[in-house]
């Protein structure tokens, strides 16, 4: 059962740890640049970028008259535009996330909340996209720590997707989000990555990568999902689709199950290594603040 009370989901200790994490993040970022980041777009900052010939329609106020006096040619003086980073936090809301104790979905929401807090504390814009819960409005990119409490309530009320006959395809969810033309920035996908199959998960990652976002993935699973459980005859039922399977769990079956899970996880790891996608594979037993600290130290999750 997922938690909907924000006070229960994000308790005071968790919030207190977020503040210290934000300070850590600030130190890490200041080692490279300040909070302001240069964009590839030109704008109205005070930092000179280059000259460009004046063409019709340009703002004549930007003509460099000193250069005209020297070169007898109208040129425009361009400056580097300063803009804030957009961090898109993709929260997997598929029914498979409603599993375990605590639920994977609760853990994912705590991680998203922590990442959002760090983002807002660094004067960047944070957006939350509930993948799979199409009827739940996404959290538009916003900045300022004053929005954080609203974000927590938003996350607390975020539902998981309803059961459906066919398993939800991760690739389709990613495609839909990309179709909404989000501003390019950093994408952090918090999910269990249990797709329709392995190819579905990898294709979803491909789509996010092809959209020229900087991609990072946090895979959250429940420890019980890596084992087939006690021996016996069972009718296993998919929580997402309600589809049953009658199986016998014995020694051989358990070993085969573990091999499959490990192979799946290894495929995800291999993909991310190959494409330089930051990846953290964790489970619900790991405290969310510890995981966030790991993400800050590991790299790929901070820009």
């Amino acid at each position, binding site marked *: 059962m997922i938690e909907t009370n924000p006070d229960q989901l994000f308790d005071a200790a968790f919030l207190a740890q977020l503040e210290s994490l934000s300070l850590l993040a600030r130190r890490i970022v200041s080692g490279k640049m300040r909070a302001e980041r240069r964009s590839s777009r030109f704008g109205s900052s005070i930092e000179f970028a280059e000259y460009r010939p004046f063409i019709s329609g340009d703002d004549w106020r930007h003509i460099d008259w000193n250069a005209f006096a020297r070169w007898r040619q109208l040129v425009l003086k361009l400056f580097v535009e300063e803009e804030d980073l957009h961090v898109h936090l993709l929260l997997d809301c598929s029914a498979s996330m409603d599993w375990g104790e605590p639920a994977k979905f609760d853990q994912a929401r705590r991680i998203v909340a922590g990442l959002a807090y760090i983002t807002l504390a660094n004067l960047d814009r944070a957006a939350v996209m509930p993948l799979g819960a199409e009827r739940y409005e996404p959290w538009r990119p916003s900045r300022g720590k004053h929005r954080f409490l609203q974000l927590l309530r938003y996350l607390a009320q975020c539902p998981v997707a309803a059961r459906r006959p066919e398993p939800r395809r991760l690739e389709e969810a990613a495609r839909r989000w990309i179709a909404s033309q989000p501003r390019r920035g950093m994408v952090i996908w918090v999910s269990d990555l249990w797709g329709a199959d392995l190819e579905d998960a990898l294709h979803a990652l491909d789509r996010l990568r092809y959209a020229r976002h900087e991609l990072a993935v946090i895979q959250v699973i429940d420890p019980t*999902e890596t084992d087939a459980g006690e021996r016996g005859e069972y009718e*296993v*039922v998919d929580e997402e689709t309600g589809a049953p399977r009658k199986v016998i769990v014995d020694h051989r079956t358990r070993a*085969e199950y573990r091999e499959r899970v490990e192979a799946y996880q290894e495929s995800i790891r291999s993909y991310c290594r190959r494409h330089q996608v930051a990846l953290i594979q964790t489970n619900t037993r790991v405290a969310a603040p510890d995981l966030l600290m790991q993400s800050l130290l590991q790299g790929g999750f901070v820009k």
Partner: protein
Amino acid sequence: MNFLWPLAWGLGALALPVIALYLIRTRLQRKPVSTLLFWEHLTPQVYNHSLWRKLRRWVSLALQLLFLLLLVLAIAQPLAAWQTAKPAAVILVLDTSVTMTAADAAPSRWEAALQTVRRRVAHLRLFDEAILVAAGEAPRVLCPWTRSKPALERALKTAAPGGTVSDMRGALALAHHLAAQRKNSEILLVSDGVWEPEPAPEALKEVHFQWVGAKEPVNAGITLFTARRSLAAPGEYQVIGRVAASAPVEAELEVRADGALIDVQKLKLEPGKPWRKTWEGSATGAVRFEARLTEMKRDDLAADNVAQASLPALHPVPVEVVAPPHAFLDAALEALPLVETHRTWPLTALPAAPDPSRLYLFYGCVPPEGFQPSAMLVINPQADGPWGKYDGPLDSALVSETLRDEPILRFVSLDNVRLDKVSGYTPAPGATLFAQYLAGESGGHAEKPLLFGQWKAGAPRWLVQAFGLEDSDFVYRTAFPVLLANLVQSLQPEETEKAPPLPGSVATQLKRAPGTGAPASGPSEAPARSGWLGGASSLPVWWWALVAGALWLPLEWALFHRRITE
């Protein structure tokens, strides 16, 4: 079919929870999972079951119900029709021989026998009768005919093994007599078969045996240990010991006299070759000897490892001589050890009441009328008296007959005694004629009493010698001191403390009597007539099946639950 406890069928209701639990088990347990990603194509799937795997569930249930049925049957104790047709009368004969204490059957033959009897008692039906007989030295009814099992149990607690080997003849005769009193009776003899003497083969007919004891008993024991004083020299003694074994055994024999170790013998015993030894010594006081067998690797019977023997003390016997001084008589008395001689003469000095501890010797006079000491020797009385009638003097006598086996005539040889003058008597009724002589012409060539009287313990003893010492020849004068010594010896107080008897050589062998008709070793089963199939160390087969079923029931359940049997 009848049942001893039909209410046990109520336990059949246990089948309901067994079936219910089974149905619960056979239903697939619903297990929600977050994804079927890893369960797809996972083998084995339930629908891939072989026919046996599908059927084994039902076979398992059927087996469980079958075992429950057997369990209920066991508790209900079914009785076959033939068992209920006739009431049975069981004569339980329990051997209480000392050999039943042998430890070759765990924990002992006796315990094994008790368990056998208890099992038989437990299998008695409500209408069965039983009687319990202990077969010891003499048969003893421990519990009369009864249908009460508690009464038989109580009587069984009073039984104990004895100190000797049982005489089974009396017990078997009693058992057959009891069997004749009841219809459909059976005799069950629980014994180790070590009997002495062996009963007649007819006595063993119609007897069901239940043997106890190991196949190869190993035992060594003292079969003889006795002490006695020398007849010639009462101060000297001999101790005789004998040790035997039923198998090759090495042992150590310790012999103690009044607790002091006098000998230790290392023995290597072989079956059929008993070891013997005689120890000699001298002592006038009482001595208690003890022999103990030790240092044996295995010894099944402990009762024959210790033996005791007692030697009584010698006491001075006062002899009151009522006669004038007589050189030969006085010398003969002085030569005897442990004799205190007193003289009373003339006869008038004799007190009216005799001393019961003294031997009175009258010579040259007759005891006063009414004077009845506990022991007296009267030599040639010339008058009538309690000994009989005096018939006057006779001449030319030759000893014709002697009771050599009488204790007072031990080592007394009268064969060549010739007497010139003797007195004729007509002995009092009841007198024993220890020696007779053939009279001459004056006696009509008839046999006359020479030594006669009564010399038995428990009654006044008197002995009459029908001639004077001066009339005897040299041969008699050598025999007379021996006769006196025998008389004095016979007055020594008898041994009051007797050592416990030894089990004997038969018990030491621990082997069954060959006439039992049973195998020489190993327990055998008794045939059953009243529903009892039990032996000394076994339970009925159907009972073992039920026990196995009861154990198998939870085991099968656990195996099925864990899917180990899949």
